[in-house]
């Protein structure tokens, strides 16, 4: 993701300039303690933590979203087909509207049995140590051996200032599509998504999304069915609905990739096409075929600014386009196991895209000591923005060890071939490097990302989470409204 909102830039500039009084060097480290191997026990502990926290394995998410632009309402019906993870018997899911106001859900059916969304005996909202993310726990024991189905009817409020309904994922904040449909907000949980969007409005709309889509209409109802065609991380699913009158739409076939570009009027689509015409073949040459089955869907909102990557898609400015398209490989297909581990995809993407533009990176020195993966629980959301800078320098350090940019991209192609849609951790990434080139950088990674210590401590802290899970008091009904409306510009 790249974020370039004016105030975001201002804030970052301030932060940076505020810190520019001195050029800062890394903390000198007198001696580096050789770290111990991350044992299989620790890896298993991490897996156990993830299973204890997320509990279910979703096969398919099927949702129908009826959007009424004039009234700012979306009526949704979502169905989760899932199985329990090993050792789990009570299902959980993430769904922000319900976690903040139980009134968002009108019907809850688990395996044909109606549950009371307001019932304290059927549903509990729980907190988990290590994250602010709330989990909705269904207090009904389930058979681990059987598949299960959860159906949820709900209503969402959306802004009415302008008729736009789109995914608003922000991976830096750890905000995924759990704001729109029930799911699990963690990168490693992948499910096929079958999403039906129905727009109830007289004016014509356009749609692009992360998957194959089909369109039908009947009267004032325009309908798109989006199929990701494979299991993907829920937070990587993109959808955009916009008035046709305000947008332009183009389709191109570039290097065998079908590109569907939706843009506000005024965005330079000619330049968009030109950039992709050179970029997509470069990516294919370096990393292999474009990973998304359906091709590439774009929503270009501006010529300048940031962007957010999605599976086979991006909501982006023209200036961030190349960066976001690299994420189709790293981040949306080659997926990190946890949010904290997803630093790697920003690091790879920033390093590669900037290197290709002639922007060099300095290898992160061996004396650098950071803790920006180790400081976060595996179940936490978001990742460190140091990934863009210091992370890119980590990639440069690997490139230097491998012998240059070409050797580095060959290694990354190896990672694509080995780990596409097979979520991995930071240490598994280190293992890939050892397997590929016999280079062991475990010590450096521990120093750079875990403060030189074993990640066991973080795992140990977080693993107690389920035991500490406690019911969450609901905020009063006015909480969201009050905080959402102050200070509008």
């Amino acid at each position, binding site marked *: 993701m790249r974020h370039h*909102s004016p105030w975001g830039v201002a804030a970052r500039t301030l932060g940076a300039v505020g810190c520019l009084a001195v050029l800062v060097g890394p*903390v000198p480290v007198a001696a580096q303690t050789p770290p111990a191997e991350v044992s299989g026990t620790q890896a298993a502990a991490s897996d156990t933590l993830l299973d204890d926290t997320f509990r279910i394995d979703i096969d398919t998410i099927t949702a129908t979203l009826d959007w009424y632009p004039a009234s700012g309402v979306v009526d949704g019906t979502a169905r989760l087909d899932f199985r329990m993870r090993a050792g789990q018997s009570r299902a959980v899911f993430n769904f922000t509207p319900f976690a903040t106001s139980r009134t968002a859900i009108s019907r809850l059916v688990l395996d044909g049995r109606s549950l009371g969304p307001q019932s304290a005996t059927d549903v509990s909202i729980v907190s988990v140590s290590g994250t602010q993310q709330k989990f909705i726990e269904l207090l009904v024991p389930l058979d681990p051996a059987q598949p299960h189905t959860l159906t949820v009817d709900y209503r969402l409020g959306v802004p009415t200032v302008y008729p736009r309904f*789109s995914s608003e994922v922000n991976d830096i904040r*750890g905000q995924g599509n759990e704001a729109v449909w029930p799911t699990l907000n963690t990168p490693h949980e992948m499910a096929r998504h079958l999403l039906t969007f129905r727009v109830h409005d007289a004016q014509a709309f356009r749609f692009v999304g992360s998957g194959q889509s089909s369109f039908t209409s009947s009267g004032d109802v325009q309908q798109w069915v989006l199929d990701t065609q494979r299991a993907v991380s829920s937070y990587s699913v993109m959808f955009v609905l916009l008035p046709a009158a305000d947008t332009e739409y183009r389709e191109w076939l570039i290097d065998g990739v079908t590109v569907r570009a939706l843009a506000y009027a005024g965005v330079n689509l000619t330049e968009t096409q030109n950039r992709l015409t050179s970029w997509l073949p470069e990516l294919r040459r370096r990393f292999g075929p474009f990973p998304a089955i359906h091709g590439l869907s774009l929503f270009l909102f501006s010529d300048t600014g940031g962007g957010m990557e999605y599976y086979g898609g991006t909501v982006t400015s023209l200036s961030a386009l190349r960066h976001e398209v690299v994420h189709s490989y790293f981040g949306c297909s080659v997926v990190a196991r946890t949010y904290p581990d997803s630093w790697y995809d920003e690091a790879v993407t920033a390093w590669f895209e900037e290197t290709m533009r002639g922007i060099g990176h300095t290898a992160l020195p061996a004396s650098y000591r950071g803790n920006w993966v180790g400081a976060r629980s595996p179940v936490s959301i*978001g990742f460190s*923005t140091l990934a863009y800078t210091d992370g890119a320098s980590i990639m440069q350090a690997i490139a230097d060890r491998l012998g240059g940019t070409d050797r580095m991209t060959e290694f990354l192609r190896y990672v694509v071939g080995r780990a596409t849609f097979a979520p991995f951790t930071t240490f598994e990434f280190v293992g890939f490097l050892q397997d590929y080139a016999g280079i062991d950088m475990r010590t450096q990674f521990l120093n750079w990302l875990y403060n030189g210590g074993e990640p066991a401590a973080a795992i140990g802290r977080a693993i107690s989470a389920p035991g500490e899970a406690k019911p969450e008091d609901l905020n009063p009904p006015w909480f969201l409204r009050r905080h959402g409306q102050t200070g509008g510009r």
Partner: protein
Amino acid sequence: MRTCRTRGWARLCVMLAASLTAEALPAAAQTTAPPAVAGAWALDAVAGIGKVSPDDLNARAAYDATWLNYLRAAQITQEHSGDIRELKDTLPVSVRLTKRIRRNWSVGGGMSVVFGRQASSEGATYRYTVTDPKAQEYQRTFAQSLEVDPLEFEVRTLVPHGLLGFDIGLGRRVRLGGLLAAGWGFAKCTLRRSSISQGGFYVTNHRDDLDMTGEGSGPSADLLLTGRLALTSRVGLLLEGGFAWLNVHDITGTLDRTQRIQDGEASSVELEQASRSEGRWVNQAASIQTSSGTWKGTVPSIGAQGAPLTLSLSGWQFRAGVSFGF
């Protein structure tokens, strides 16, 4: 009307009246006289207040005030507390020994010390919701808090000096005149700053601690108007005011800085970097994008590019003290 009620006040009143009407008073009332004969010595000690304007040093205050208020002009929810302050006031103390070489002239030497310190803090919080259909995210909430606590300036100077004084008697107890002192000033300065930046569009928590120390020296001169009121034959009150010059152009020292980052859901510090620079203090260019435009200025730094910093401790001084004659 205030009357002189106590014995001390009465004595002072008498002397003041006597100084103004010396020729009219009977001789019996003229008990003492200030020493005004060649060869007489005087030991003076004065202290007071000084006004300074060390612009290069205070640039840090201007920067921080701008940083804290960068969204002040925007129509958003905001709260402010505290007030970042510049270093403006000092406490000058001077001790000198003079010898009257003629009836109206005296020479001598002494030592001046100037101490100045200003510690202040300020905080700001901003919150707004962006609803922009043409943005990357349709609706986003921005919440940020900024704090500088403290911003602390401290200067100390030590100025050995020689002096030349001229005064004339006004009556028998008051002498008015001027004093020129010249010497070499040795200055030390310190800049300490801690800031916290939290939030924004993302959940960030950045802490920054800065500690700069430096010292240097330069020529110094004071030009003062003086007044001396004899209390006894050997003791007098001194009042003086004037301008003191001390601009130190070559400050060298150290800069220690620690940055700590703990963003998002990190349960502990993600990155802590400490650095030290040594060398000359310079004015490093800095800019801040605010809601009302781009602010450009400088901040004191070491190891960065910029013109040498001048520690300007020149300014008006007003001092009072006592003089012992012997």
